């Protein structure tokens, strides 16, 4: 069958390849204008406010503490993830839901290119929203005078996580298009977050460190104050999350309708590259070990990250002894000097007694369950070295100024007796109890102080009943209550001495006490 007329095919001028970026930019502009993500941002803002920002304001104004919850434990990611995945799936399933897949398919541009433009617009809105919310939160922190430095690497992890959720959600929508794709993707993202958090709490090492809401090892109290935030683990997580995003976007380009053979081969390579990047991230996280200042991944570690941050301490006086803190802890100087005053009053002038108290960065071991770091008296002349970051600061996790002061007194007295990282000998425990009584922590309250959360492990060990004849604890059972037993009896005798007599006895026996040679019977 022949048409009525016949004419040569018209040929339009060849398409200039240099116009491809401009076309992509125009497509992106269109998609940005009509993207559904802005509609969900107010809801995310509400979740962010209630879940990420508000709980953080109960923490002391130090960056590492303020951001521990929202950045360290990944609550900003939890707030964004499910919403972003759901909206991205909605955008990804758009062509099929709207019955427009045929029209998009028969255009010269590959379907993959059109989908990538749509995804890019969704991701720009989502990541832009994330960065704006975090910027506003950090701005408020800065306005509130929060000390230290912000955890920028963890912001990057959050942005990468939002990008990954966006890509994964979009891929779900594009590959399984239906009206159920969005709720399924959102619910899936929520489940992933929940499992990530749950796994994160129980896995302090190994591959699970890659999970973006695993809170183990992310933050250390000296981070951003004494040492920079270590970028090792964040780099591995960004690699992992970016790999997921790239792999998901590559997957969209694999179906037959996505484009030509060359394009689909490219999509396969992109998918593979994403999987390799994500796998590399997991592998690197598996090699992580907890160093003195945070998680170290040997393959990524830069020694420059271990250089301490220079600072000029802020100092005060306590019983004639200079007490110096990192300026980030400036607001706690009055509390620290007040807490140390009675202790230093007891021990000042004694041979081996501290002539200066200074804050130091806590050093952390990789042992599970290890919290905090010991307070020590060392050097010539002796200096009381206080890792305050390991204590519950006033306001942190519900801690009060009184609790903070009591813990500070306990740790400084423990350091003075020379008990080191253990509970000490019965004599050392008795002297510790007596000095605490003198410093304003009555015997009846001492068990409560010893059982406080956040203290080194020797504190709870002190509460245990004696295993054999050598170590007799000051209490028969755990928990606060009237202290009894031989250790406490000796402590009461020492505490009952006049201050000058106690001072004289300590001056005479301090060496023996610290070396662990003194017995309970030798106490006055």
């Amino acid at each position: 069958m022949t048409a009525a007329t016949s004419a040569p095919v018209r040929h339009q001028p060849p398409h200039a390849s240099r116009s491809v970026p401009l076309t992509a930019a125009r497509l992106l502009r269109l998609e940005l204008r009509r993207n559904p993500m802005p509609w969900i941002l107010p809801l995310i803002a509400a979740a962010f406010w209630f879940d990420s920002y508000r709980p953080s304001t109960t923490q002391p104004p130090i960056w590492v503490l303020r951001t521990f919850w929202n950045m360290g434990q990944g609550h900003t990611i939890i707030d964004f993830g499910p919403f972003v995945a759901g909206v991205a799936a909605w955008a990804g399933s758009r062509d099929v839901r709207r019955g427009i897949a045929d029209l998009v398919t028969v255009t010269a541009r590959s379907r993959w290119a059109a989908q990538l433009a749509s995804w890019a617009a969704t991701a720009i809105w989502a990541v832009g929203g994330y960065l704006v919310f975090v910027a506003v939160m950090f701005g408020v922190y800065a306005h509130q005078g929060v000390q230290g430095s912000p955890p920028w690497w963890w912001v990057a992890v959050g942005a990468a996580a939002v990008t990954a959720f966006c890509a994964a959600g979009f891929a779900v929508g594009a590959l399984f298009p239906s009206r159920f794709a969005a709720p399924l993707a959102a619910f899936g993202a929520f489940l992933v977050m929940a499992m990530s958090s749950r796994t994160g709490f129980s896995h302090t090492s190994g591959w699970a460190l890659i999970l973006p809401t695993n809170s183990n090892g992310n933050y250390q109290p000296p981070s951003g104050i004494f040492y920079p935030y270590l970028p090792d683990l964040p780099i591995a997580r960004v690699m992992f999350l970016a790999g997921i995003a790239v792999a998901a976007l590559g997957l969209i380009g694999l179906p037959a309708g996505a484009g030509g053979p060359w394009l689909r081969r490219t999509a396969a390579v992109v998918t593979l590259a994403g999987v390799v990047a994500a796998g590399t991230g997991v592998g690197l996280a598996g090699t992580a070990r907890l160093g003195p200042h945070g998680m170290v991944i040997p393959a990524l570690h830069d020694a420059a990250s271990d250089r301490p941050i220079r600072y000029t301490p802020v100092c005060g006086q306590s019983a004639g002894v200079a007490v110096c803190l990192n300026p980030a802890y400036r607001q706690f100087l009055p509390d620290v000097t007040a807490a140390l005053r009675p202790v230093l009053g007891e021990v000042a002038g004694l041979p081996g007694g501290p002539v200066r108290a200074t804050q130091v960065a806590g050093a952390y071991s990789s042992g599970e369950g290890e919290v905090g770091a010991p307070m020590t008296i060392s050097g010539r002349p002796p200096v009381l070295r206080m890792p305050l970051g390991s204590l519950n600061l006033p306001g942190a996790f519900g801690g009060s100024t009184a609790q903070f002061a009591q813990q500070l007194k306990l740790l400084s007295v423990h350091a003075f007796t020379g008990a080191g990282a253990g509970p000490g000998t019965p004599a050392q425990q008795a002297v510790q109890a007596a000095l605490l009584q003198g410093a304003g922590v009555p015997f009846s309250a001492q068990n409560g102080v010893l059982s406080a959360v956040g203290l080194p492990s020797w504190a709870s060990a002190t509460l245990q009943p004696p295993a054999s004849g050598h170590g007799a604890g000051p209490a028969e059972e755990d928990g606060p209550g009237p202290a009894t037993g031989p250790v406490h009896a000796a402590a009461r005798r020492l505490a009952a001495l006049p201050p000058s007599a106690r001072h004289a006895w300590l001056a005479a026996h301090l060496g023996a006490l610290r070396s662990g040679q003194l017995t309970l019977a030798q106490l006055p």
Partner: protein
Amino acid sequence: MNVELTDLTRRFGRTTAVSGVTLEAGPGVFGLLGPNGAGKTSLLRMMATVIPPTSGRLRLLGRDPGSYAPRREVRRKLGYLPQSLGYYPGFTVADFVEYFALLKDMPPGRVPAAVAAAIEQVGLGDRARAKLRTLSGGMLRRAGIAQAIVNDPDLLLLDEPTAGLDPEQRVAFRGLLREFGQRATVIVSTHLVEDVGAACTEVALMEQGRIVFHGTPAELTARGEGSGAAGDAPLERGYSAVLAAARSVPAARA
């Protein structure tokens, strides 16, 4: 020839939607008539490169769309309006047409003028900034036609383009078809016989996946003369007569 179909067949499972169609078409307006389920839409979708044929040979604009590169070239010069037009409700008319202009690989510098011209041609100039969800069914159809013609296609495939249009719009649209037919191949699938009579230079009638008539509208009209077939208009009588004849010869379908 812009369209060359040789023994083209398309099956969906056990159902044969298009069976051994052979057809050629150059510039002009080509009407594809037939009852519901005759295979018009499947044939149009193959010509639009939405679906590949199960067997047979298909050449569009001098190229074989079976391979990716030629298919892409064809698509660059193709305009297609599907039977059920989907749309993005949040897009404006201008966004919608611009979106497809960009996907059709038009040079970006030419896009704004081409979009404005296409929207004017379908009479939606005053609604260019209106969101698609606010438009009536007829206006949506016109927006769909605008996206089909925005790239000034060499091959324009329209599936039921006048569905939902009011009489005035249909008259205007036929004029647009004739104008396009001067320089491009326009294939219009419809069951509205009067559209064919008013705009088409050639017509084919499909029944059960086969072409049962191919000729000019005047020839189709002539088939109805003297027949007892029902139908008010002469063209409709021809249409009915051809269909009746096709159905009365089962062997022809075997």
